[in-house]
């Protein structure tokens, strides 16, 4: 993996040299990935975005990437290396890269950084994320309607606001259509570990769930559900269409390509500045993959109506009345959650059992 990056870097240096000689240097765009590009989920979609940038700009850009970069000290090293290789714009695509991105950005004021799903910005660090919770609302609705055991399993990665938001959104919409529904949340503390994700899915299924939602990056839970035979799942981050029409009955697809192209363009013509982007279904950053025929027609129609309402910004998944887990009031009737609270969400809504680990 590193070897491949080295080769890429060597090739890139050669290309940059050649381009410099005839006067136009391509903009060099770097991507730091938390998993392998072939994970079939999160990192795969970011890499599709990278390829779209290459396709769109042709030889005016040059992209480099490093995959399987652990969150933590290694991330700083990977980013520094990219900046030293001459990258002008670096996308760091996992929540855990937040502090490393800020640290490295301080050392390279001329390099522009874009951090996905975080909340810390500086003059040369933008943040961007997608409103995945809109997709979770659709999943919750379908899950609540389709579950027969009334038990829904949720494979959660890390206890960060993005993940907690997803759990809350799915729960609220499952509960709305099925008052008896129970959520069973398993924290696996990894974004990508197919064996562990499969074990988690099996543990949930053994415990009686017949819907498995996942907030991890591999397709292993889909395979575990397929093996069990009567469990439905949803594609996460990517369509995971290979597991349709059953167990995968729909999916949330992250579409980063338009954003990556827009930001690369901005860096190219000098209009880049630090911004905070949080787009959803309306802007096309979150897409809902095909709802298969395994879903009853009326449920499918309701889900599609909900998607249309969110696309028109007529419906917000966090609309009161909603209480927090401890019973205190969070949103009064008709109130809509503000982005600040959503971005820092560290509580379950009323009805979810269990505690959020620290």
């Amino acid at each position: 993996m590193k070897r491949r990056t080295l080769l890429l870097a060597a090739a890139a240096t050669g290309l940059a040299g050649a381009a410099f000689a005839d006067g136009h240097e391509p903009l060099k765009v770097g991507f730091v990935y938390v998993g392998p590009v072939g994970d079939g989920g999160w990192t795969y979609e970011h890499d599709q975005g990278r390829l779209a940038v290459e396709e769109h700009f042709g030889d005016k850009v040059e992209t480099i990437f490093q995959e399987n970069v652990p969150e933590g000290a290694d991330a700083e090293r990977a980013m520094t290396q990219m900046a030293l290789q001459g990258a002008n714009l670096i996308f760091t695509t996992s929540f855990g890269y937040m502090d490393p991105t800020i640290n490295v950005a301080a050392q390279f004021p001329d390099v522009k950084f874009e951090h996905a799903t975080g909340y810390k910005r500086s003059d040369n660090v933008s943040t961007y994320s997608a409103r995945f919770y809109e997709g979770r609302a659709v999943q919750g609705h379908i899950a609540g309607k389709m579950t027969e055991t009334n038990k829904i399993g949720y494979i959660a990665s890390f206890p960060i606001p993005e993940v907690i938001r997803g759990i809350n959104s799915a729960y609220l919409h499952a509960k709305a259509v099925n008052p008896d529904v129970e959520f069973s949340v398993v924290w696996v503390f990894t974004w990508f570990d197919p064996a562990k994700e499969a074990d988690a899915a099996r543990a949930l299924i053994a415990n009686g769930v017949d819907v498995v939602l996942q907030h991890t990056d591999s397709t292993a839970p889909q395979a575990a559900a397929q093996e069990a035979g009567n469990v439905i799942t949803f594609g996460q981050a990517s369509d995971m269409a290979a597991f349709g029409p059953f167990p995968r009955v729909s999916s949330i697809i992250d579409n980063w390509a338009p954003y990556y192209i827009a930001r690369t363009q901005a860096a190219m013509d000098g209009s880049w500045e630090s911004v905070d982007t949080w787009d959803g279904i309306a802007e096309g950053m979150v897409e809902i993959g095909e709802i298969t025929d395994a879903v009853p027609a009326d449920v499918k129609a309701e889900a599609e109506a909900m998607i249309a309402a969110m696309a028109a910004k007529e419906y917000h998944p966090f609309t009161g009345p909603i209480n927090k887990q401890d019973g205190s009031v969070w949103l009064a009737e008709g109130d809509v959650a503000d982005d600040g609270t959503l971005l820092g969400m560290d509580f379950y809504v009323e009805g979810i059992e269990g505690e959020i680990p620290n």
Partner: protein
Amino acid sequence: MDFSSINPVLLAASLMVAATPILLAAIGEMVVEKAGVLNLGVEGMMIVGAISGFAVAVETGSPWLGFLGAMVGATALAMVFAVLTQFLLSNQVATGLALTLFGLGLSALMGQGYVGIKPPSVPKVPAGPLADIPTIGPVIFGHDAIVYLSLLAVLGVWAFLKYTRAGLILRAVGESHDAAHGLGYKVVAVRVAAIAFGGAMAGLGGAYLSLVRVPQWTEGMTAGAGWIALAIVVFGAWRPGRVMLGAYLFGGVTVLQLTLQAGGVAIPAEALSMSPYLVTILVLVIMSADRGRAAFGAPAALGRAFHASA
């Protein structure tokens, strides 16, 4: 705490499945280390085994040929290591690390056309009425052949090292290659054979991940299992029984904490996830003291290059 929702029988059965890949890789690596070679490429060999096995199983439709293919693929990679370290006398630590990086890249390349495919399923060993015995039925008789093979491998390695002449020679090579050479044993040949065995077992472990435990191919799917296998060899103090204990403990803790969470039991999941690593670090610290090293039974020539003229 309410443990009533946890089914201990299912738990025991699933922990055996979770432990099998690391047990296979660890028992192979133990033999390699007993011969005085430190091969840090376990992760690389596992993942190459995972994709080789997956590809062969998908193409032929037979999981058994898949497991065989995994052993062949990973052994081929191990042979690269053997040539570099035993004949060209390269540094074992550096070569092993390179082998892992190479294996991860190579497997990604080999796996291009195999993403999202379902492999042929591995049947459980038909145990007839035995599998219906309450409690012990599912735990002891409800598995596929590889689980039993891994247990046989532990037993076989133990008997081989303890009771056979060949095992004695292998241990002699690992303790003092100069003395073994002086007695006329082919040090390099013994070590190459051990490395091949280690590769085959790592490959089998990798294929167990891609064909049974997950079961599918995903790039980077071993996700550190090879490193855990390496740690378990140290944890097990180079003894087959303890290596098995280590693997089951590790697999057990992983599955246990997931099952407890699924059952809604509040436990500090982070603490449980950490525990096998903590124990390994502790063992390593104790070992690093000289007397400790001997007490734990680390092969004396571990990691040292051998050349007949030296």
